[in-house]
């Protein structure tokens, strides 16, 4: 998952990015509204975190512009004052949730998680595919009730495919959403990850959760039980 972080205070920006990284998200960060509008319209992010109190172009304007440009990904606003008028204006401008500063890292991550899940059309944090269950809140995967040991890259790959179930996801899209920009896109690392993932979650090849569409990418083939 690739997230956009817009915050003018460098310490907070850095802290948010560190938290996101340790939670397995990839993030781009910037400190002013103009750059935020540019980044937010140029790249297909999965979510944006936007501070309302930005210099020059304020956060509310950034949210409005991104929505006017047709960007549909969830937007979480950070507000210092935390009064309802600001929150309502932010939500009316197109944001989906808010976090009041100062915040607990757990709270921010929980909100991000819930927004990503809701954007994919799942109300519950647990994605139940019968024998295979992905818990997006705890970021764990279990097969027939047994918890599987996945690396965070493997988990993120699986979660991204599952949240985009039924859609064709190209290797380029996967790399864009899962890895930092300096990642070498020609490498076959993705194929290696997918292969390892298949072995871990479907060792007997009886479930076949991930289809390979030759020359185009992958498609998550399972449907949730609930």
């Amino acid at each position, binding site marked *: 998952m690739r997230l956009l972080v817009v915050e003018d205070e460098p310490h907070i920006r850095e802290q948010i990015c560190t938290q996101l990284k340790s939670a397995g998200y990839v993030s781009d960060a910037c400190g002013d509204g103009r750059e935020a509008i540019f980044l937010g319209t140029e790249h297909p992010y999965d979510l944006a975190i936007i501070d309302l109190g930005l210099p020059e172009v304020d956060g509310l304007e950034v949210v409005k512009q991104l929505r006017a440009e047709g960007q549909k990904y969830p937007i979480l606003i950070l507000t210092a004052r935390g009064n*309802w*008028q600001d929150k*309502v204006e932010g939500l009316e401008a197109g944001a989906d949730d808010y976090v009041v500063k*100062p*915040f*607990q890292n757990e709270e921010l991550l929980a909100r991000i998680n819930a927004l990503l899940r809701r954007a994919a059309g799942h109300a519950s944090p647990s994605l139940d595919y019968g024998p295979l269950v992905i818990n997006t809140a705890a970021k764990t995967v279990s097969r027939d009730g047994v918890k599987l040991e996945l690396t965070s890259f493997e988990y993120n790959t699986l979660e991204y495919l599952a949240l985009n179930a039924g859609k064709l996801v190209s290797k380029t899209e996967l790399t864009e959403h899962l890895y930092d920009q300096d990642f070498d896109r020609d490498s076959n690392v993705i194929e290696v990850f997918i292969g390892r993932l298949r072995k871990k979650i479907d060792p007997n090849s009886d479930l076949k959760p991930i289809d390979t569409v030759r020359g185009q990418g992958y498609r998550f083939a399972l449907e949730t039980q609930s």
Partner: protein
Amino acid sequence: MRLFRSLASRFTLASLLVLPAVLGLSGYMLDQAFQRSLTSAEKNRLGSQMYMLLGSIDISGGQPQISQELHDPGFSRPGSGLYAWIFTPEGMQWQSPSVLFPTPSDLKPERINAGKEHFQDLISSQGRVFSLSFDVEWENNEGNLPVRLIIWRDSSVWDAELRSYRQQLGQWLGSLGIFIIFAQLLIMRWGLQPLKRLKSDIDKLRESPDEQLPGNYPSEIIPVTQSLNQVLANQTQQSERYKNTLNDLAHSLKTPLAVISGFAQQDPELEKKLADPLRRMDEIVSHQLSRASLGAKVNINRSINLRQLCKRLINALGKVYDRDEKDFSLLIPADCLIQGEEADFMELMGNFLDNACKYGRRQVFVDAEEMDGQWVIRVEDDGPGVAGNQRQSILTRGQRADTANKGQGIGLAVAIDIVSAYSGSVEVGRSPILGGASFILTLPVQR
């Protein structure tokens, strides 16, 4: 003196006092003038009768005598009201046949001055009469004979004419009075129309606060509307400046707090030590900022449509709490207009609705009604509710019933501050419909 607060009643009262005075005075003056002209006509009439009488006099035997039939039959008809006498220094020489009463003794002249004419309006034994006397010197063979002629006419004709005139005058003045009253009512309506329009324009202003009063008023009112527009513009500017200052202050206080909190969270040991002081600082800053914004009230109270305001909040909360999870029942009537600042009511209702979402399970109910000059607003949920022994303590400023939601505890305290600023009160109870908490806000209706 409540009556005189209305311009219309002032004008009506003034015209009720002035109109009878003006009409009465005019009536009196016209009556006097008419009486004068009647009297003067009477004098002329007596004058011409005097000349006719003179023409009928003959001197025979050294004494004046009426030799021929008098021109006016009134002199001959007894009791006709028209009487004549002829006096010489020796005494009365002749009286008209109409005189049936004893000749008043004071008619006899003491001295006769030839050429003297005397008109009188007097009260006699026959009632009110007009009297004309004329002194002449008659030349005859025996020298000059002084003669006084006196004609009386009673006032019956004069009275009848005056009566008929007064009747007509009364009718005219009455009709004039009624016409003036109607005309004045119409003029008053027309004259006060711009003020009525001003009131309705100001009422509209309450609903759309950013607008200004239009400029098409009479020149006497334009200075008022201009000043009002200036005040409105200043207030909008001031409240904008105030809002910006508070936002800057919030940003510059909360951002360092967020930085410290972020650093503290990187070290579990440090976080444990700093969590409580940081939370307290955050709450104090939030609370004080909310209280400061309460002072940003503008002087001209504006109306807020509470239903629309709650609708916006519910839409916003629907996003935050996932629309499918919450079921809002908004039962506030569409015409519920409350006087106050939008930001205050947004904060007030936002906090109560947010609490209902946070502590309730699924259903949230919000209602408002006007009762005995007060707005009663109810926000209810289907959560566990507030235990009886905690109901008072959660309403005490800054205290929370639980610590489950850290950093969110000031919401209720802020809401209570706002309600107090509007001279209202908050009560907590159990929702009779949903079974959870019921917050009842009571606010006085300001008109």
